[in-house]
């Protein structure tokens, strides 16, 4: 499994690097602007950073998911790996774990910075309680949902579906956080969506011929 995950990461290292760069950029902006300022300004910085993170993350993560499935078909990677003592489930699991890791790389540093920043603001009770956890849980699940959408669209042989289609669907999905806010309801909906899309992807990947 480790070998498969390592292979996936190496194959898509460009996305990890992109995620890392974005992560560092946002962390730096939050840190530079947020610390030492007024609480309201700090909160504003945090929110702006989260919004921009989400927007950029959509493109990176959606592209990762789409690329993993679509290029697999072109390069016949799964076709080759399947002839080795490796099951389709393992190949797919390695792919999904890679996506999870990429999201973690993107969001971990900003989340930690936000939490530290909030703890320095004076009104730490009630107002900002669980704020980081709620916001970043929702953002992480949204990213995961976008990634799964990319995986599903990556099966298509049509380039339009793969590029535009996945992006449009991802943007539609992202708007759920605007509609529902980063509440528990949103988390449940996103969890179910992620589970559903992973189930669909798994079933499709298990039954697709490797030509």
């Amino acid at each position, binding site marked *: 499994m480790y070998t498969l995950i390592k292979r996936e990461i190496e194959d898509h290292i460009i996305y990890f690097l992109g995620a890392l760069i974005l992560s560092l950029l946002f962390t730096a902006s939050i840190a530079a602007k947020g610390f030492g300022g007024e609480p309201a300004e700090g909160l504003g910085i945090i929110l702006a950073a989260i919004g921009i993170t989400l927007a950029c993350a959509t493109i990176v993560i959606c592209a990762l998911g789409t690329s993993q499935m679509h290029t697999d078909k072109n390069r016949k990677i799964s076709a080759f790996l399947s002839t080795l003592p490796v099951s389709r489930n393992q190949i797919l699991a390695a792919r999904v774990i890679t996506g999870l890791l990429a999201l973690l790389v993107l969001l971990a540093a900003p989340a930690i910075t936000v939490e530290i920043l909030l703890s320095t603001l004076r009104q730490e009770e009630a107002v900002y309680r669980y704020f980081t956890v709620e916001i970043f849980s929702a953002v992480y699940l949204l990213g995961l949902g976008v990634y799964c959408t990319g995986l599903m669209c990556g099966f298509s042989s049509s380039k339009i579906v793969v590029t535009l289609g996945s992006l449009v669907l991802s943007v539609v999905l992202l708007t759920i956080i605007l509609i529902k*806010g980063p509440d528990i309801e949103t988390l449940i909906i996103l969890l179910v*969506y992620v589970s559903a899309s992973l189930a669909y992807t798994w079933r499709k990947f*298990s039954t697709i011929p490797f030509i």
Partner: protein
Amino acid sequence: MKDLTYTLLKSFAAGFAALLLLSTALFWGRFYCDRYLYGRMAQQSTCRSATISPSGILPAEIEKDPNVDIASSFHGYTEPDAAVIRTRLGIVDYFERRVPEARFMLSFYEYVNNGKTDLYFDKKSGLIVYQSERAKKTNDNKTEREEIKLYAGPEGISEKPTKELGRFYSPVRMQKEPIIYHSRDEMQTEYVRAVPITYDKKLRRFFKIDFDKREVKKGPEIDKNINFRPIQIGQPRKGEYLLSFWWSEPMIEIKREDKNEAEKRYGKIQKRIVTRFYPPGGQYVPFLDERGLIFLVDRATLEIAGEGGYLPAPMSYFGSGKAARPNVARPKDLLAFMIEPVAIKPDGKYLGMGAAALSRDGASITVAVFDKEGKLLKMTNTVDGYFSYRDYDGDGIIESERYITQMDSSKAVFWGQPGSPLATVLRYLIENLQGPALNIASFFTADSFEASSGHRALFLVTNSFIGMKGRQAGVSFSWKFFGGLLLIAPSIILSVLLAWSVKRDALTKGLCKKERLCWIAGVLCFGLAGYISYRLCCKQAGLINCRNCGMSRRVDMDVCHRCGGSWLVPELEDPGWRVRDN
């Protein structure tokens, strides 16, 4: 069996994903229709504000004073297009809930001259926690910050959370009470901090918690037989960003000879009779019951003094909505409400109150005035029409034209303006794309959702026309349901057409009867979402002509799904040749 399970799993998975993405897209369609409709409504002044003037609660000698230039009034006002964004976007609601004085927090922040105060209920200890940071002058005239933390329970206040303080179980949220406004005739500004009063639902008592004096006063226990469910204490309000409601004092012109030197430079000056004042030291504290009734509790004795009024039920598209009592709206059915109790100086004698309510769909405001006994004096609501203002003649702006129809604003928003009917029809069609099952579920559950959360629903469209129909009061259920079915007729027609298409395709593809029926049922229930998931999931099995019956048959089945014929038709087989040794 395993294949069937996996097929079901894939179908449900695809179905949910399709439903979620489609519902999200449809939400935005409805959102932009509403922005257009409510934006047009915003241009009609009478659609977005309601006024009662004269209020009728002041003593006759003030109301009927011939010198009164402008009578006392209650005004309710909303910004409909801003309301659309605020109510429909949960992210706005999320942050609004978190700011100080937010509606879901037992907390208020106030800035006194030299510090900050924080007050909240700690569930774990069952105590109300008071935190304050004040500037304090030391002996050598330096300023340093003093932090105070106090814990209040039913039995007292202490600097440490001890068991002797007892515990609160579910104290009702305390709303911040107003500070005294500066009054022009007295030319001074006062800031007074209210002593918090709360009600504990389990202990069934009111408590006055004075952190300055470090004492807790308990009121008498409320009789269990009294049906009493307070949800807010203080100045009950909801959706402050959606509804503005204020009391205007009567204006009396100051005669020229009475003016001071500074005032003589100006023309007409009006003097307020200071009435909009509800002192923290005043007689009553209002609180709101979950049925929409407003009661008054005596600040001194902490006993219930009587009913002060109620939240008036606004109009909705299909008439007045369901309510616990006629004309009374439940707080959860309203997007916003506010009350303005009125007392008169100098003794702070309570006169009565005004209450304003913004309907669930944000299209109607109702304002009501109650006397000191809680009896309804006057009520009005928003209607279609406008006031046209022109010219300033030195004394004020002249209203030059007034046009009011009889159409209630809740209907006018959809039909009253040019372009609105088209947007309304579009909105109606978008709602119908949701699928009959969800529409019918919306009909039945329309009343159970809190007003603003209903706007943010993805799957159930409780603030749609079908939802409004579900909430319609005063009509028998069967007529209401029949009306609802007519409303969702486009949805039903579309589902039937799609189901018919699925049936034909499924027959061609050779799906077994069970599978076919499941898909047809799914498409009939969920309409477009069901159809999309059918297209995503249904196998593209190849078809060839059956040698037995001549019809198309699936290549992956051992027998023809039409005639049951097997692949081997001996009389048609080529005898051929084989060279095999096993």
